[in-house]
């Protein structure tokens, strides 16, 4: 009884955290980049915060949930590969998580092309994670093209933050 109750509570907390992060990324409200996500207000920080290496917050903040791309490119940079190595190791260690990889583009392209480019970026991340041993059925991809900018200025400073692929982790089966 007590064990069951605890198990349910823990699953709930994890699901809540994952849910919250997903919403922040999708709506683009997370304007602070990597460090702006994973807020866990009202939840015991020792359980789900960055101190817990199995937490979503740890994945988002310490490992890094996103990689950035050069203009009109979907090639992974050395920095991106380093981040993705960390993501792969985390996913290998935390097998109850599935991922959705969002591919994004900056505003310097036409809408349809940017959708295809965002797909390419998400796919580049998926291919790399699969090459590191993550099962393909744990990874979903989606492109947002230029529809969900994080940074809103019209200079390279903002554009470089928007050319991104974000790995969202959540518990549950991949659709």
């Amino acid at each position, binding site marked *: 009884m007590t064990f069951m109750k605890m198990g349910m509570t823990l699953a709930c907390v994890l699901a809540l955290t994952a849910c919250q992060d997903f919403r922040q990324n999708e709506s683009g409200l997370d304007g602070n980049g990597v460090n702006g996500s994973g807020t866990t207000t009202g939840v015991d920080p020792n359980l789900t915060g960055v101190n817990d290496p199995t937490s979503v917050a740890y994945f988002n903040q310490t490992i890094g949930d996103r990689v950035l791309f050069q203009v009109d490119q979907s090639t992974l940079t050395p920095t991106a590969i380093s981040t993705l190595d960390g993501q792969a190791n985390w996913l290998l260690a935390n097998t109850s998580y599935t991922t959705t990889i969002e591919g994004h583009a900056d505003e310097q392209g036409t809408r349809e092309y940017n*959708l295809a480019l965002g797909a390419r970026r998400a796919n580049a991340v998926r291919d790399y994670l699969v090459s590191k041993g993550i099962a393909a059925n744990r990874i979903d991809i989606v492109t947002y093209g230029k529809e969900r900018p994080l940074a809103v200025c019209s200079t390279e400073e903002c554009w470089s933050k928007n050319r991104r692929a974000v790995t969202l982790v959540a518990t549950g089966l991949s*659709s």
Partner: protein
Amino acid sequence: MKQVLKLMIAAMMLGLPAQAQENSGPLRIEITEGIIEPMPIAVTQFVAENAGAEAFASQLTDVVISDLVGSGLFRNIDPSAYIGSVTNFNAPVSFPDWKAINAQALITGAVTLTSDNQMVVKFRLFDVFGQETLIGLQFAASSQSWRRMSHKVADQVYARLTGEDPYFDSRVVYIAEEGPKNDRKKRLAVMDYDGANTRYLTGTDDIVLAPRFSPNAREIIYTSYETGVPQVFLMNVDTLSRRVLDSERNMTFAPRFSPDGRKVVMSLSNGAKSDIYSFDLATGQKVQLTNTSAIDTAPSYSPDGNQIVFESDRGGGQQIYVMPANGGAAQRISFGKGRYGTPVWSPRGDMIAFTNISGGRFHIGVMRTDGSQEKLLTGSFLDEGPTWSPNGRVIMFFRETQGSGGAPNLFSVDITGQFLKKVPTPTFGSDPAWSGLLE
């Protein structure tokens, strides 16, 4: 939601007064030569022939003037300059009065309200210097359709004076946008071509993109994130019922109807690459038309249905190609400076409109279907997504301003590039797509 009113317009010729005189050549505007000076015309206040018709007569006159002047081809002479006046639709016209103010054409009209809220609109178009009646017509329809009747009047005048097919009685489907740049809400919307009568077809829950009308304007295809990934949906404009086209969970986008309305051509991405597929609406059969490792997207049929123009980065950069409608060898047609995307075949078949990105700016341009005679019509921080008027003489697109407060609005430009104007919408607007001329 309210059903779209179906307009039954009964048109009949009015008896033309015996005023035809010797003629010094047809009154005619040539659009292709680039209009330096709009033709001065006098659109007189339409006469209200019975009680209750006054408001309609006034509004109808305003829309006729707005249509004609808005084409960039005509200048309406201010009524304060009039010498003559028209208070009786059937009284003879005094041509010298209109010659004196240099009105090349004169338009007179009358509005009568009949029982059951039916309305009769009569009008005449005169060649003032030829002293000739060019058109005399009357329309009857529900008074609720008064704007469409106005557009029909203006269409008749435009067609007679330009020798071109008209375009005023048409609609545009577009994306209504609201909210800050990093939390933009997008809704599917339809409006009259001039920005009036916007009607929203979706809520703000899911991102929607790039809608297009079917040839009869009764259906719309568009991309929505309703299922969590971008997928092409087909919606009935009257009932708002909708369905996803591809039964598999693929990312699909950039749809357009074939000219016969039986197929949709669109992009399907597996992530690594985006290929072009046609999709038979009756059978659900999906046919792959391109197969490269490149981004192939933004397909658009030629009006005869035999060819497809699309964009691809197969040569290293984003450029425009033409291929047979069933797939096969593609010929690159864009060779100017920069990148080229979003090609759209003109309904006349003679030209292709596109978005060009060069010199850090976006341009709307046109070229012949073999890529020759390229001309950039506009330029700004971001001009994108051209769509053709039903007669292939005007292009609508969206222009987005830069910076943190940047937002898109709809604009139109004639194919000479001389007459650019904003199309008023209640919210920000993007991704316009013009219908054909309404029936």
